[in-house]
Structure formats: C-alpha cells, structure tokens
C-alpha cells in the first residue's frame, strides 16, 4: 500500500485538517477492532514507539502503540496550532511536524507568499522530507487551505510549488475553501485570485469548496433534524455533521462545516485506505479526470447528506443517492452540473454496492447529463467495501464540469471591483517582490481559465460528428 501526507496551512487548513484526523481515527477505530496496526492505517498514520526519541521509532507491524498523523501543520500564527496541541488530538502530532510563526499574514496573500514563503522554505522542506522518509511509497500530498486569508492562500500556494519542485513524482491534490460573497475578509477576492493562478499552474487536482454551500447544507440538515420526520432521523454516530462521539470535545463554530470537507477527504481516500472490488488509486484521479492540465478543478458532491436514517436501504433509496449526487443542493460549490457540460465524472462508492448497481444508475442518469463530444463515456468508477461509520453506503461524485465557471467569474468580478478602485493595493505593493504585474497576470490567468471552460461549454449544443480518421490505401 501507498502512503499520503496531509499538509494543512493557515487557520482554515488546520481546522479542516483536524476534523479529518478526528474522523479518520474514528473510522479506523470502528473497523480495526483488534488494535493491530494494518496497511489501511499505515496509509495516513505512523505507528511509533514513544519510548524512543531518535526519530527512527516506526513500528511497521503488530499492536498499535501510538499513532502519528502523516501531516505537516503550518500556520504563521500560533493560536490555532496551539489549540490543537492542547486539544484531544494532541497525541497524533508532535513538534517535528509543525512550522509556525507568531504574527500571521494579516489576510494578505503577498505576506504569506512573498515574505513567509521564502523565509520558511527550508523549514517546510525539512519537515515534509522528514514525513516523506517515514513512507515507503509516498503517493500523494493533500494540501488543505483557504483562499481568502493570507497564510493558507499565500504561503499555502508557495508550499504547493515547493512540493512540485522537491517531489515532482508525487501527486498534489488541493482542497481549497473559497470565500463566500459576504466574507469578513475584505481582501479575500485579491487573495483568492492571486492564489488561483498558483493552483492552476502547480496542482494536479483542486477540489474547490465554497463556504456558502457548506452553510446551506448545514442549514438544511438542521431544518430536517428539527422537522422530526421519522424517516429523516440523523443517526447519532454519523460523522457527517457532528464531531461528537469521536475524540473531539465541544464543537467550535466551523466544526460542522469542516466535517463535511473532512468527509469529502475521507471518501476520496477510502479506496487508498481500504479494500474493494474496484480500487481507485489516487494517481488514477488526475489521469481519468483531467483531460487538459489546467482544467483540473473537480466539483464534488457527497450523498447521502439529508436523509441519514439508513437501516437496510432499499434499492429505491440507493438509486436516490445517485440521483442526489447530481442535484444542485448537494454540490460543495454553488454550481449546477446537470445543466452544464461534463468533461469527465468519477463515482467513488463505499459500502454494500455492486457493479450492477453502478451500471444501472449510470445508464439511468446518462440521458439527463451532457458529456463533451469526445468523452461520451467519461465515467470512472470505484467500489470500496468499507462504508463510512454509521452508514451502509455513500457516494462521492467528482465532476470535471464547466459548472465551476460561475464561481470563478463571480470571484473575478469581486476582484475587479476592488482592483479598479485600487482599494487596499498598497498593502500588497509594499511587500518586497510584489508588483502590479502579479495582479494583472493573476487575473489574466483566471480569465483564460474561464475562457477555456467557456469554449468547451459552447460545444454543448452543437451537433457533432466523429473526428475524421486516417485513410488507409487498400
């Protein structure tokens, strides 16, 4: 089996990361009842002998001694990381995995990217190297960060290109939290657009998540929980919105939202952690879903989200799960994939689901979806036999779909509104290495990305015929 390392940067990155570690531990505890350190655990956790402190203390088999997350925690202020180190998850991290500073990036991409980036580079490289040395086959980095602040956005994207330089063969999957229109960070459009350019150039895949969508989903779940219909009882131990029952204690403001992102990551990595009849290696995600290098933004949706009572789900309900995955209100960004154009689509299924269920549902849904002419059969599927805790099955749909466009155009509009007025620009321009060109190039990069999706989408309504083929003389 292969291993992956999570690099969590900034407040958002670290808070989301912690929800992931909490839920992952819970998931493994649920399945691994014998307490033996197995391959599944090894993909994201080390097993260490705490009595040795020389760094060579990995125990590769046998009883679980002390689990350490394969993670590097980076923040330029200490608050969030300190809280983690004093919280219930303190034992899964140690000081060799941290890179912190004291003053934060002040919601300024330029400070994160141009100041802390070069300053922390060696330090970060060393920590990541160390984590990589504990892996016998490192397959993937998962970077988690927000787009709107300074550290996650600026330093996070610096770390991304550092990973590319230092580990060119290891795949880089980024989870990026996009600010909502009413975000409290005024400069978030700048930070996001500046970060976007880096993501477009240096990531293998980006999973954008919008805070507004998470809020909508949480609201809807809460509504249902209060409506009290018996068919819509939310199971207590469900990891979807609640941190209770795990090692986590009281809930913090973002916890419910971050749990959803953590679940996205849990499902995404399920096939790498557990067995299944149709495995999907992490390096197959980009291979199958990214037809052009820059167009690597994957819209994700999780089901079931709302109806979580799950005793012996009948076929109808199983099919509903597939239907929901394509509906607007299950997407983790504000997007409607059904009315846009698919370039490719992956269905990552967990639990008691058969190949025949997959085929039936693909056949059923296909007529209502548009696929680009050259990828009419653009489906990638995987089956993992272990369902999430508290569920009998689950589905993560990843869509490379032109429906990401509105998110990007709105972001650009918000950026332009500030940029035309030159609002707050001086905060950026006085940072060494930061020039006007950084802004104009970033927005150009975003515009051309939007243009590329536009062009593909314009083929949607066209009649198409097979590409001309080579004629062979007979």
């Amino acid at each position, binding site marked *: 089996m292969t291993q992956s390392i999570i690099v969590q940067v900034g407040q958002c990155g670290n808070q989301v990361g912690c929800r992931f570690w909490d839920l992952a531990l819970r998931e493994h505890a649920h399945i691994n009842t014998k307490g033996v350190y197995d391959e599944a655990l090894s993909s994201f956790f080390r097993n260490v002998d705490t009595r040795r402190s020389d760094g060579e203390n990995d125990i590769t088999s046998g009883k679980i001694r002390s689990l350490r997350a394969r993670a590097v925690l980076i923040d330029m202020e200490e608050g969030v990381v300190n809280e983690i180190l004093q919280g219930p998850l303190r034992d899964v991290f140690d000081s060799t995995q941290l890179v912190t500073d004291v003053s934060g990036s002040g919601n300024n991409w330029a400070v994160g990217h141009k100041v802390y980036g070069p300053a922390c580079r060696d330090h970060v490289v060393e920590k990541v190297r160390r984590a990589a040395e504990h892996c016998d086959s490192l397959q993937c980095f998962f970077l988690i960060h927000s787009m709107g602040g300074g550290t996650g956005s600026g330093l996070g994207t610096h770390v991304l290109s550092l990973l590319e330089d230092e580990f060119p063969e290891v795949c880089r999957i980024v989870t990026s939290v996009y600010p909502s229109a009413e975000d409290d960070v005024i400069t978030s459009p700048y930070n996001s657009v500046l970060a976007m350019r880096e993501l477009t150039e240096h990531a293998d895949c980006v999973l954008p998540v919008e805070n507004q969508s998470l809020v909508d989903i949480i609201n809807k779940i809460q509504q249902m929980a209060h409506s009290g219909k018996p068919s819509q009882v939310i199971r207590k131990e469900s990891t979807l919105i609640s941190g209770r029952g795990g090692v986590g204690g009281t809930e913090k403001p973002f916890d419910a939202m971050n749990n959803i992102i953590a679940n996205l990551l849990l499902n995404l990595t399920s096939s790498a952690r557990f067995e299944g009849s149709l495995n999907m290696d992490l390096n197959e995600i980009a291979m199958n879903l990214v037809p052009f290098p820059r167009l690597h933004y994957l819209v994700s949706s999780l089901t079931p989200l709302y109806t979580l009572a799950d005793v012996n789900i009948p076929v109808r309900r199983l099919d509903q799960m597939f239907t929901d995955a394509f509906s607007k209100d299950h997407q983790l960004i504000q997007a409607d994939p059904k009315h846009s154009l698919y370039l490719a689509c992956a269905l990552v299924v967990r639990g008691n689901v058969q190949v*025949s269920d997959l085929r039936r549902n693909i056949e059923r849904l296909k007529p209502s979806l548009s696929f680009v002419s050259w990828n009419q059969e653009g489906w990638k599927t995987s089956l993992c036999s272990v369902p999430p805790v508290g569920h009998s099955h689950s589905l993560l749909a990843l869509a490379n779909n032109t429906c990401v466009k509105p998110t990007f155009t709105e972001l650009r509009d918000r950026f332009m509104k500030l940029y035309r007025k030159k609002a707050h620009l001086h905060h950026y321009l006085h940072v060494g290495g930061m020039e006007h060109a950084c802004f104009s190039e970033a927005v150009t990069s975003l515009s051309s990305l939007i243009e590329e999706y536009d062009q593909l989408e314009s083929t949607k309504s066209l009649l198409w015929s097979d590409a001309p083929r080579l004629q062979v003389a007979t």
Partner: protein
Amino acid sequence: MSIVTVQLGQCGNQVGQELFSVLISDSLEAQRQCRGEPGRAYRDCSLERFFREHNEASYARAVLVDMEPKVITHAVATAAKSSTWKYEDGSYFCQKQGSGNNWANGFCVHGPRHEEAVSDLIRRQVERCDRLAGILTMMSVAGGTGSGMGTYITQCLRDSYPHSFILNQLTWPYGTGEVIVQNYNSVLTLSHLYQWSDAILVHENDTVHKICAKLMNIKHISFCDVNKIIAHQLGSMLQPADTVGTLGHYTRNPVGELLKNLVCHSEYKLLSLSTIPQMSSSSLAYSSFTWPGLLKHLRQMLVANARMEEGIDWQVRVPLNGQPALERMAEKTKQGFNKSLANVLILRGKDVSGADPEAFLHPGLYSSWLPAGTAFSTWRSPVPFNGYEKSATLVSNSQSLLKPLDNIVGKAWNMFASKAYVHQYTKFGISEEDFLDSFTALEQVISSYRHL
C-alpha cells in the same frame, strides 16, 4: 512440452489464477472419469504443459507481475487454499504503486525499470521446462500495468526468445468503462503488440458479461464470474487434444499448432473464441446434446458473428463464392456475414470421433486466397472437458473483432482530435507522433480485415 504463463496487472492476475484452477480441476477430473490410459495420458500431458510437479505438489508454470501488491497477494493465497495447486514462492514481482491507468507509465517507466527482475523470473520458469512450447501472456488493455508493462515485457520476450511462440491473451474493456482513457491505452497496446506477438487472443468483457447473464443466469455478476467463463474458454483451447486424427495421441505443442493453423499472415493476428454449450451446472444436469446440433449452432455463430448461442441471427447466410448473385443478395444476409481467414475447431467429449465438421469446410466461409482445406482444421479429444459431456470450441481468425476494434479506434480518434489527455502520456515520453503511428498501424489492421 510446456507453456510458461505471464500474468500482468489486476486483470491478468485474476484471469490467470482462474485459468490454472480450471486446468488442474479438469485434469484431475479427467483421470477420475476416464479410467486407465486415456485419462492418465490427458492428465499427464496437461500437467506437464502447465504445472511443475515437485514433492507431490503442482506448481503453476507462471510468473505474476503487478505494480501493486493487493491483487497478487490475493491470487497467491487463493491458489494456496485450493490444495490442488499453487504458485511457486518467488515467482511473483510486485511494487507498491500501480501505473495509474497510464499506458505510458507502464511502458516507458515501469517496464524498463523492472525489466531485469521480471525477465529473470520468466527465465527461471523457462529453464524449468524440459522443452518450451511457448509463452502465454495475460492482461487487460485498458489499465496501465497490464497494458503498458505487458506490452514492454512482450517486446523483451521477443528479443530473448526469438524463436518461441508468444501468444497474448487480452481482455478488452466494457464499452462504458471503469477507465476513461481506456481507448488510448487499448490503441497503444494493440498497435505495439502487433509487431511483437505471434497472435492476439481477445476476450471482450461486454460479451463475456452477456454470457454470464444470459447463459449462466447469474444475477449479480462479479469479475470472478466473468473470469470463470474466460478460463473455461481458454482451457478448452489449451487442454490436450489430438491435432492429426489419431485419437489419444496428443499434440505436443498446442500453441505452435494453433499459430500454424490460424496465423499464416502477419497482417492478421486477432483471434476470438467461441464455446458451446455454456450453461449453469444446474441446467447442464437436465440437458443433452448431439454433435450435429452443437456444430450446427457453432457454425451459425461463426457465420453470423454471434459469440453465444442465444440470439443467433439465422438469416445470415454464407455468400456463394464468385457468383454474380452475390451482388443481388439481400442486404441483410450479406451484411451480417463474418468472413474467416482460418478456423480451428476443437471437439471434446463423448463420441467425438463421430462428429462431422464438414460444414466448416465450405469455401464461402473463407477468403478467396486460402483454400478451405488449409484454412480449417479439427482437433479432438475423447475426454469430456470441465464437466461438459460434449463441448465444441472454435478458435477463429475472422472479421469478428473488426467492429469492436473499429469502435475503440474511433473513440480514441475522437479524443485525440481534441488532444484531450495527451499530456498525461507525453509526460512519460509518448509523443503525439507515437499516437499517430499507433493509429496508422491499427487503421491498417482494420482495413486488412475489412477487405478480407
């Protein structure tokens, strides 16, 4: 003489393991059923061909290759559990990470990097054979390891064993796949293998899946069910049979005989398999068959290009050779006709010497440039195969794979025209020109079969 099998990637290893299970259980059953000399001769011949006997245990003459460990671990454990046969310790090679569905990764990176280790394992198996009849490689064309690395290893085998027969057994993907780049991977695999392999034996997952559903009556079809069908068909081709007409005298080299009979021109290397009857064991208990009945169905399956006996189009007829009436023949009958270059009919079971394959000798079945007498041969064995009292298998070099091949190439062209996914391949050293060369090679194959 013996055959060394190389199983590559998830599919190759899963199908290979099923094949050895069928081979050994059929051989042991043969000895139980046909007491005395015929059963023993059949068993001995089969075991020598596919297994090495050592300390009362049968070891598959196989090398297992994958870039990730899960599948091989499972195959080795399943074989060990059978208590009838096993894989040899140290006959497998695996790494930690798969090729990520990328042919270029398998062919350009993993192939060269592990060539020596894999070649050593194969050489060890070859050296353990008194005489080598040929090498059988098994893999899918849609993934990255089996297809890419399998192609690379085939090329190495061609260099190391220039005079040995190399037969590639390939599994073609479902039309709507589990792998989005499956058509690229297929095109690259087939075009390269065409240069190095002696023959390419194809199983289409869609076809086999249908057999599971329609003939075997399986509700929830798993890969295991599909693989059992493939193994059954392969076994019926590879188990001992008499190729010249003296029953009980088994041919020494089935691969060599097969290729001699079927592949007389390097432009035509695609072989397909049909077997009749195929049914669930519960139905089998209540059925009886006659040779004329079986052969009549099998012949129409060939003529109308049906891979199973259900839903055969009986309207399709053999056109009368060289007669002007051909032009006036109803479109329908002319269209569905599947022309052959060569066929081998393998008959197994009760009263096999009385079976009359005359109808397969019709000259209209074959291309004009090969006389039916040369193009057709019959092999027989009096030993019932794999629980079927009578069974007939047709190995065919015909137009039957033309349509699926044309589909794969067409879809790959569509994708290539927009250059989608090409960067994933150039990253590992496969250029656009390489793609174009592969397209050209396969268009040539398609054209050749079309104008057969």
